[in-house]
């Protein structure tokens, strides 16, 4: 029998999505005493439960040795899902490309990220005032700073106080010392006049409370930490929120739409389908908080159509789905001949880089707007599928220990010796930059296609502009400058105009934001400066959707700070009986 099952209670708040934004809202609201329904489209996940642990596994514990042909970042990556999910398609308009990464599980995409935790700077909120492009945020750095401070203390981040322009310092735990290749990077940076400073990652190098352990330096944050020593929304926010007793977690709740009252236009709850049992449900709530990810939240709003909200909920402005933008990305690898024949020791360190390059140049002197930061990789990491691949392009170029040149390729014990000699002598660099938000880059509801649950899917339209393409070109020039200063040999060839200078396809950097943007004017924005819908005061969006512009930083720390700020606003508005 087809029937819709209704939860008997009316929750104070229903939160859709358990990633950074949803986890933070659940934590803050539950702590304040609200009865919260937390809806997650995927299954339960706890990094400390052996059922889920991949941390400290060896490559041979995967039959494909950790290759990435099934999970996009390899068998051991914590994130379930990826750019393609069976039965959950999305489409494209006019032959454009946008790749949409989704992670259906508790904690969402915080199960896959580099823990890079950068604050936006004062300029990042006021870009239009600086270069005339895009729009200013309705808030400034000073509005967000107190929340960044609280996020630093609640979640923990290491780094160093540098006093740099537009790279605000935080409340930092001590950073790990640079690895060998990172010391070389620092030297090279001095030569090339490119700053290299300790990275800022949400990993506990010192204990901050009794619930979470401290980093044991296995370099595997991407596998989720069983000691809860890095930030994942599951371990740091959702599970503690559930422990308050105020949160009802509903897993496998694939939301269809936000339900609204026909007379007031306000949200009354959420309808969802159980993705395993395929049963239909509704949850009633006084406030609905969307945190399903920038694209998924806009999909939900656009699918929440009614006589009162004919363009979809919170969309009288028509901007929902618009201004979609991901970070730019380009990368290059290099070989460092002077690091051949390295002494072996454990240099796993924390998950990811110990140093990075924040944006350092003045756009007035460049042919593109907005900046980028550079992330670095390298060292004697754990081998996985692909190890040693392409050695035939390398081992003919460098003399053997005995000082003789040998023929490239080969086999046998001399080849075996080559694998040992070249191990740990590679370095990688990846630029991550700011795109200029564009009304014509968007996602909308495809009129013809539904997913396996019958929910209309998103159709993307996205094109990089010259701004982003020129930025990628500049990234590659910088990479070569750095490689030269390092005394390294760049791998492969420098990408040219034919490939947009190696600019990654939109969606590949998984920083997409902007689809439910905030602003003071209800005609040009969906949310007000507290992430509250202009059109329905009990609807909030606390994921990257609310961003006016994505900076040259990673978005997570700002999602967390803005979700905390919105939660505090919700609590105050309820107290004042405004919602």
């Amino acid at each position, binding site marked *: 029998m087809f029937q819709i099952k209704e939860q008997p209670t009316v929750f104070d708040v229903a939160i859709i999505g358990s990633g950074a934004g949803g986890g933070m809202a659940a934590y803050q609201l539950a702590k304040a005493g609200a009865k919260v329904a937390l809806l997650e489209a995927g299954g339960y996940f706890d990094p400390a439960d052996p059922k889920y642990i991949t941390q400290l*596994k060896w490559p041979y514990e995967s039959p494909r040795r950790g290759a990435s042909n099934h999970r996009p970042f390899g068998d051991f990556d914590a994130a379930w899902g990826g750019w393609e999910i069976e039965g959950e398609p999305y489409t494209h308009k006019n032959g454009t490309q946008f790749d949409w990464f989704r992670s259906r599980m508790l904690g969402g995409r915080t199960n896959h990220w580099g823990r890079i935790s950068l604050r936006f700077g004062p300029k990042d909120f006021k870009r239009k005032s600086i270069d005339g492009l895009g729009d200013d945020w309705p808030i400034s750095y000073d509005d967000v700073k107190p929340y960044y401070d609280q996020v630093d203390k609640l979640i923990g981040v290491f780094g160093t106080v540098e006093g740099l322009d537009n790279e605000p310092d935080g409340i930092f735990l001590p950073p790990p010392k640079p690895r060998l290749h990172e*010391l070389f990077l620092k030297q090279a940076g001095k030569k090339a006049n490119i700053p290299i400073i300790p990275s800022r990652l949400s990993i506990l190098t010192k204990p901050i409370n009794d619930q979470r352990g401290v980093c*044991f330096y296995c370099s595997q944050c991407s596998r989720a930490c069983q000691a809860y020593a890095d930030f994942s929304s599951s371990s740091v926010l959702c599970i503690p929120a559930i422990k308050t007793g105020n949160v009802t977690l509903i897993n496998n709740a694939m939301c269809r739409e936000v339900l609204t009252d026909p007379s007031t236009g306000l949200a009354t709850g959420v309808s969802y389908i159980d993705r395993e049992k395929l049963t239909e449900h509704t949850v009633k709530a006084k406030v609905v908080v969307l945190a399903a990810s920038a694209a998924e939240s806009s999909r939900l709003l656009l699918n929440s159509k009614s006589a009162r909200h004919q363009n979809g909920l919170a969309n009288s402005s028509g901007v929902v789905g618009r201004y979609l933008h991901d970070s730019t990305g380009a990368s290059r690898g290099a070989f460092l001949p002077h690091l051949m024949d390295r002494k072996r*020791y454990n240099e*796993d360190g924390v998950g990811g880089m110990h140093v990075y390059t924040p944006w350092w140049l003045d756009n007035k002197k460049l042919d593109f707007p907005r900046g980028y930061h550079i992330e670095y990789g390298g060292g004697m990491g*754990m*081998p996985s599928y692909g190890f040693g691949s392409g050695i035939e392009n390398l081992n003919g170029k460098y003399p053997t220990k005995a000082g003789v040149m040998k*023929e490239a390729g080969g*086999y046998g014990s001399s080849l075996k010796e080559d694998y*040992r000699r070249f191990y740990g002598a590679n370095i990688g660099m990846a630029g991550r930059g700011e795109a200029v938000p564009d009304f014509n880059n968007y996602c909308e509801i495809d009129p013809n296609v539904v997913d396996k649950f019958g929910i209309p899917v998103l159709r993307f339209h996205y094109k990089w502009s010259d701004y982003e393409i020129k930025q990628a070109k500049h990234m590659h020039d910088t990479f070569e400058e750095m490689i030269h200063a390092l005394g390294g040999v760049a791998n492969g060839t420098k990408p040219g105009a034919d490939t947009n200078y190696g600019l990654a396809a939109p969606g590949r950097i998984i920083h997409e934001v902007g689809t439910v943007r905030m602003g003071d004017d209800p005609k040009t924005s969906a949310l007000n400066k507290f992430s509250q819908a202009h059109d329905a005061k009990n609807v909030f969006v606390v994921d990257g959707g609310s961003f006016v512009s994505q900076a040259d930083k990673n978005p997570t720390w700002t999602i967390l700070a803005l979700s905390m700020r919105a939660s505090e606003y919700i609590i105050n508005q309820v107290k004042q009986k405004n919602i």
Partner: protein
Amino acid sequence: MKRRDSLKSLTLSSLGIAALSPQVALAEQRDLETQNPPETPLKIPGGRTKEEAIRDAKIAKEKFLTVAELATIKVLVDIIIPADATSASASQAGVVEFIDFIVKDMPQHQTPLRGGLRWLEKESITRFGKGFTLATKAQQIQIIDDIAYPQKAKPIHSQGVAFFNMMRNLTASGFYTSKIGIADLGYKGNTPNVWEGVPEDVLKQYGLSYD
């Protein structure tokens, strides 16, 4: 559902022959069970989702490479990575089994690998009148030397070079991700520890310091 229960529902409902005599039903069940031995219950390894565990088990059960092809692969991987003073050979580290799995998991390898093995076999028959595994070690190496060095190989052998590059890369993947290969490489991590920076002697070796 357990196999026995599914059989029950099969005979009673799906086939719609509720009137089968018990002896016939029993014989049919025996027949089915000899054809398909009762499935061992699926074990989901830690860190895998159920769907992934089902898929991995299914791939493991499939067959792609033949016994003869696997025998040639064993010879090749041990030419590429033989035992030496430091570690055992590729086949001893399980590389043949790894390649057997990975070509099923990554179908893009199937035709290049199968075709490459065939190329090798034909080359051996043309030169020596017998297949590659039956050739002497010296004869095998004579062919390998023609395809193992991309820059000096003759154009006529270019397909063999491409095949050998692929074999070299798959062998390295399999070997250096095995317990034996990781020990050979001297990778020291994947264990709880405290990172206190680059060891003093290494800093000295490169003329570096933290100050």
